[in-house]
């Protein structure tokens, strides 16, 4: 198996290279390394070590993933089996299970609350913080050759803001009026008028508070990531020698820095509308026959502000996953990544374009059709850099000496998901077709496949691949493969059918369809989706058991570089302490993708170029 590809003698050589060519930053002269180990609180709780903070993000993210997924199972049960009794959930959900003739069903208000929480939690807490927070923290210092982040203190704050945001959101679940229920996009008036729905009062207040805290966390993290990548690279680590993971995290942080503040503006204006009676987003509205005081606001303005963040946000989610996948695919197919520079330029192109396509979420909001055309064109252009990336991943695999393990399988699965979901994006990007498809299950299928499932796959690939670096042990490979195949088949089983229901016009976010004669024949399909969702969830339980079991009982790592990878993180000790490298910081001599070159399986980045050898990637 892969774990034995590297002999001990070559490891020894690497230590010599680090010692001789590396860079002495006098880190160990100060003895502050010990400070971080000395007590439980600073090691495990208020840690400033990027590796520990990464684990904190990961495990918090996993907690939220479980909560958010269970929510979806509850509302899927209601959708798939509206006639069955949900009475057995009453002990957990209390008054949100309404009993009628002995049959318990989910209260419609709570259905909306669950859908909203599911979206918010998965998009922000799991796929933003859990994914980018985990891997940016873990890999940026390790792969660029830094002792830690530029500011370990801000890094710690970043985690604790995220944690607090989570606590606030969690508390909102227990409000007597329920959590916010106006959708993860929080459109006004549902997000502004407390009387608009049950969740619009205290639920929305806590939701907004939680998200403001969350944005602070993202920004603190992002400022740190950008600064670290630009200022803390080791000797020889030029930008063009950075692994694609780092490129992805770096560009992601820039997108976040430029888009999240806009979301804050939107939220601040919402908060003013809610509490100070301003009318930024509220137009003339009658509720219960009563005209409200608010005049002249524009709910569409909110949508503009929201999607100016919202669309870049989806790339904030997917770019880190793309970075992880590029790295994992290259290492496990024992080939250099195909088209390294093209990969970097397409990340940059995607990032740039992601700022000028936001109104494709608003084709049906009454925006001027001529303006729509502009957004149609740029939306469709995004398909170009996306396709470049897909092409390069497939070319990387082509004729590779691929090791099919859990990590690489998930990376390959990512490519499959990204293709399937990207293609439906091209449908939606045409404003004329969107008239039929907007707000249907087709959109739900599109973004779950291209963003939800794909990003999860990238994250799983990353976890299986870097678990040894995090815990010095391996995850169980058999369970990993079972997890992969179950999730791969399960995810398609859940979301593929939604394309058909969506094309037939079944609207998303509806509590029940029994009044629509036309949708009657989808009843069985709906049940199928629900059952598939439950089974797929069970496969995630396999993953969770594997993860926690392996932390304590997994197979121990015996060599530093089990995958035979060329990047710097695998030159650190098996149990890296604070500061990552024991002696010198390694110096970088070549690009990160020298696999199968000159008859060698891989050449580490710290090995000098041979005479006359050209550095790759250019």
């Amino acid at each position: 198996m892969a774990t034995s590809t590297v002999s001990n003698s070559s490891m020894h050589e690497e230590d010599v290279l680090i010692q001789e060519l590396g860079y002495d930053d006098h880190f160990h002269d100060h003895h502050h390394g010990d400070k971080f180990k000395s007590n439980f609180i600073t090691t495990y709780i208020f840690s400033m070590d990027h590796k520990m903070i990464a684990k904190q993000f990961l495990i918090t993210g996993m907690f939220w993933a479980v909560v958010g997924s269970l929510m979806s199972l509850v509302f899927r049960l209601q959708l798939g089996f509206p006639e069955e009794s949900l009475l057995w959930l009453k002990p957990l959900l209390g008054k949100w299970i309404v009993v009628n003739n002995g049959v318990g069903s989910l209260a419609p208000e709570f259905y909306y609350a669950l859908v909203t929480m599911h979206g918010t939690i998965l998009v922000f807490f799991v796929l933003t913080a859990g994914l980018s927070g985990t891997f940016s923290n873990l890999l940026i210092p390790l792969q660029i050759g830094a002792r830690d982040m530029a500011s370990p203190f801000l890094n710690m704050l970043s985690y604790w803001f995220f944690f607090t945001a989570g606590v606030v959101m969690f508390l909102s679940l227990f409000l007597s009026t329920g959590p916010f229920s106006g959708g993860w996009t929080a459109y006004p008036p549902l997000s502004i008028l407390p009387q608009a729905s049950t969740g619009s009062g205290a639920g929305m207040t806590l939701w907004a508070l939680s998200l403001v805290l969350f944005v602070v966390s993202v920004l603190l993290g992002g400022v740190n990531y950008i600064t670290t990548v630009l200022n803390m690279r080791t000797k020889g680590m030029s930008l063009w020698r950075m692994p694609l993971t780092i490129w992805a995290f770096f560009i992601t942080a820039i997108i976040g820095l430029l888009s999240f503040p806009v979301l804050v503006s939107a939220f601040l204006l919402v908060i003013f509308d809610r509490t100070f009676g301003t009318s930024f987003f509220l137009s003339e509205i009658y509720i219960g026959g009563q005209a409200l005081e608010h005049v002249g606001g524009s709910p569409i303005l909110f949508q503009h502000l929201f999607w100016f963040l919202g669309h870049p946000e989806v790339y904030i989610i997917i770019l880190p996953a793309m970075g992880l996948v590029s790295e994992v695919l290259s290492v496990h197919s024992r080939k250099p990544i195909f088209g390294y520079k093209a990969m970097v330029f397409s990340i940059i192109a995607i990032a740039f374009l992601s700022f000028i396509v936001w109104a494709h979420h608003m084709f049906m909001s009454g925006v001027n059709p001529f303006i729509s055309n502009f957004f149609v064109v740029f939306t469709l252009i995004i398909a170009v850099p996306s396709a470049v990336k897909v092409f390069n991943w497939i070319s990387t695999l082509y004729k590779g000496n691929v090791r099919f393990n859990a990590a690489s399988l998930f990376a390959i699965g990512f490519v499959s998901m990204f293709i399937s979901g990207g293609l439906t994006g091209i449908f939606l990007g045409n404003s004329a077709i969107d008239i039929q498809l907007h707000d249907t299950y087709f959109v739900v299928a599109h973004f779950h496949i291209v963003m939800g499932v794909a990003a999860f796959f990238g994250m799983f690939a990353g976890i299986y691949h870097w678990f040894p670096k995090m815990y010095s042990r391996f995850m169980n490979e058999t369970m990993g493969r079972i997890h992969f195949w179950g999730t791969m088949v399960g995810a398609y089983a859940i979301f593929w059918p939604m394309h058909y229901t969506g094309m037939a016009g079944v609207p998303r976010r509806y509590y029940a369809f029994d009044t629509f004669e036309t949708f009657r024949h989808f009843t069985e399909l709906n049940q199928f989706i629900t059952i598939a969702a439950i089974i797929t969830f069970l496969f995630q339980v396999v993953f969770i058991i594997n993860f926690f079991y392996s932390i304590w009982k997994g197979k121990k790592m015996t060599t530093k570089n089990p995958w035979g990878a060329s990047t710097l993180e695998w030159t650190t000790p098996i149990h890296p302490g604070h500061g990552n490298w024991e002696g010198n910081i390694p110096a970088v001599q070549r690009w990160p993708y020298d696999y199968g070159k000159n008859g060698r399986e891989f050449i580490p980045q710290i090995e000098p170029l041979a005479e006359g050898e050209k550095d790759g990637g250019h």
Partner: protein
Amino acid sequence: MNAGTAPMEYGSKNKIHPKKFALWVACAGITMMFASLTSSYLVRRAAGNWLEFPLPVVFWYSTVVIVASSVALHFAYTSFKNGREQAYRWLLSAAFVLGFAFLALQYQGWVALKEMGVAINTNPSGSFVYVISGIHAAHILGGIGALLVALLHAWSLPYKVTQQRKLRFEMTLTYWHFVDFLWVYLFFFFISQS
């Protein structure tokens, strides 16, 4: 924070200290926030039902005051570097007092708006002025906090130009210039719109 994270000493590309760089990056984020607020203003204005009113004169005064504060801080910094100990202390204090005066004047500006009959919830045109200048004031408050720390250092520590103190001062200076400039931009934005 800790020595392991100091910038690397080799090469010439690492001239800027990571913390300073981080501050610039943070300023870029803040800029985006105000850019989005002022574009919202424009978009909303174009939609009609927009109350026109002149910006109260107090805002002219506050603008002068904040620029003066920036200038004072700038000379406080050059005095600090060049060993003019007393000038440094007094100019820094002046910058601090002027910063405070700015906030007081902004408050007067809001009162004047209200007296003109433009309350926060009268019409979005007025609401925007309150909200944008209010959010800006919150950023000034952060700057005043930093100035306060600088002031305490100036008056309580023995005068000495160390790398650490210079870095701190430079960061305070950068941030203060940034939020001051931000106000000047907002001010001219409002003027050009009313």
